[in-house]
């Protein structure tokens, strides 16, 4: 399973895989590159498939946020499973992203 992404208007949706870790780096980069290409002002990370994230995945999310101009509202992480939510909570990412 790999990362898929789609754009609709000014919104970019990225679906993260079962294991969201260093292996996803290249694909995530190309998803982020889609931001350059079009007029994106909101990124939505759909994590419903994801059961594991590692610290490089957290790094990728920070990279995305950086790309989106560092505003908290610009990136939302949705459909987080409890085990993933726990990791995001440990990193206190609720301060940086809108989580649901």
């Amino acid at each position, binding site marked *: 399973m790999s990362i898929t992404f789609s754009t609709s208007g000014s919104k970019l949706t990225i679906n993260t895989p079962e294991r969201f870790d260093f292996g996803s780096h290249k694909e995530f980069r190309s998803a982020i590159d889609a931001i350059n290409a079009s007029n994106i002002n909101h990124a939505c990370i759909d994590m419903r498939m994801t059961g594991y994230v590692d610290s490089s995945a*957290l790094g990728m999310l920070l990279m995305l946020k950086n790309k989106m101009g560092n505003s908290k509202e610009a990136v939302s992480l949705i459909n987080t499973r409890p085990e993933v939510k726990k990791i995001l909570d*440990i*990193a*206190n*990412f609720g*301060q940086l992203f809108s989580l649901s």
Partner: protein
Amino acid sequence: MGSIQQPSASTISKALVVDDSMSQRLLLSHMLEKLGYDVVSAKDGEEALAKFNEQRPDIIFMDIEMPKMNGIEATRAIRKVLDEDFIPIIFVTGGTSERYLEDCVAAGGDDFIKKPFNPTILSAKAQSLLRIKQLYNEQIVQKREIEAFKAEEDREHEIAAILNESIVMAGYMESPNVHHFLTPMSLFNGDILLCAYTPANKLNLLLGDFTGHGIIASVAAAPASEIFYGMTAKGFGIREITEEINTKLNRLLPAHMFLAATLACLDPETHNLSTITCGLPDHFLFNKETGEIKTLLSNNLPLGIVSSQELAPIEKHIEVTSQHRLFLFTDGIVEAENSSGEPFGFEGIKSCLGPTGTSSFDLVLESLQAHQGNQSQQDDITLVRLTCDFDPEKWNTQEPQDSRVEMEPSNWKLSSTMDYNTLKRLNPVPAMVNSLMEIQGLLPFRESIFLVTTELFANSLDHGLLGLDSSLKKSPDGFAQFFELRQQRLDQLSKGNIKLFFSHVPHKTGGELTIQVHDTGCGFDENQVLTDIKNNDGFSGRGIQLIRQICTSLEYSNDGRRATAVFTWSNE
């Protein structure tokens, strides 16, 4: 023969034909030449070996029965020389020689061709083997590249280990209260453990986990550890250290890199354990006597992501006893999987913490090993136990210093006033005490002077300006409450200042340092404090008692707003 393809399109392949019969040799050579090969020939195994060494053909046609050295022996010898290189060897068979086929394969033959030769089959076999040879050689080149790459990576790991050893571990002070287990690979995984004592003999500890691996993590660990050791030696608290490391890493690291870390400070005077948790998994504070386990959640962002102002680290305070053990770890231990892929988890660690005689630290490691079974060591494990043991012997870790002051004792005065805005932002004591060391070189007495100044300053700020009541600290809950309230009031502080005044006069063999701290707060009833101390009402008096032990005098004036302590030193 028009349908028969030439061998390689770009280069001409060289064939070695070995046969003791001259007619066979000429026939096969002629056919191969017609197919576009460059041909050399040999009349027996011995000559074949010599021609092979001299000419390095691309393909060999080998007769089996020959005088001197037969084809099988020659093949064995050639394979030995080739080692892991590959040249196809085709055995030429016919008549009775077919009974040797098995031996031919065992010696390293790749194919057979039967007399009389069919040019189409000869060409097809030769080409297909040459194609295999090409693939094989490409693979060998790739294999060697990978090996070289791996060797390069191993060397980088070695450098990372050396860097880590010399920079990150340089300031590490062994402490009987800190027990740790780090698998060698966890260093390359970006885990760091730092530990040192402040001049006031508090124990500062940092456990961190960088995103990134190997040399990258080691490079980023260097500035973090230098800040940690430098500021600890100067007596800064973990909040200031956290902010400084965060600022540095925020500037230094790319957006996707950060340091998940926990800083802890254990104070043997107040029995206070302060922690700042930034993105590491939950830690456990375990009471060995009662079996109670308190979970310390990460309540700050990891370091290096936002500015220190945005980070505004939350510091937690807990009063601990000698029975308390703080277990800290990075994510490797939580995620360590068993054979069915289940993680060890927080429960795995917690289940080892019980009121048993065995060391809970060893239990965690044993239980983890049992969990991982045969696949143990697959994960990088970092486990640290901070023992909150206040046995004075364990705190005599400072190295004895030469107690002589080299500088001539002299007359000087130094004063500094901090208004409420400054007090909100920084603790002036480390910087002030450092400047005293510059003026008079009182290094041998640095700890004592630091301690006295810290205690007097804390009293002025906490009780004078912030109006906090020490009796709050009587219960463990109240202790945390006290610090929470302290932070709250400090944030809201809108007036007042604290003045620090130092004066020094020489006497016969040394000198006398007067330390005065004056605040503009509401003052206090000094007699009450003195009574508390006499009655050993523990909580508020400890600092003052300590000052009295160190100093020749301690007096309060101006309704408790001014404290004057005199520290006398001698070179004799």
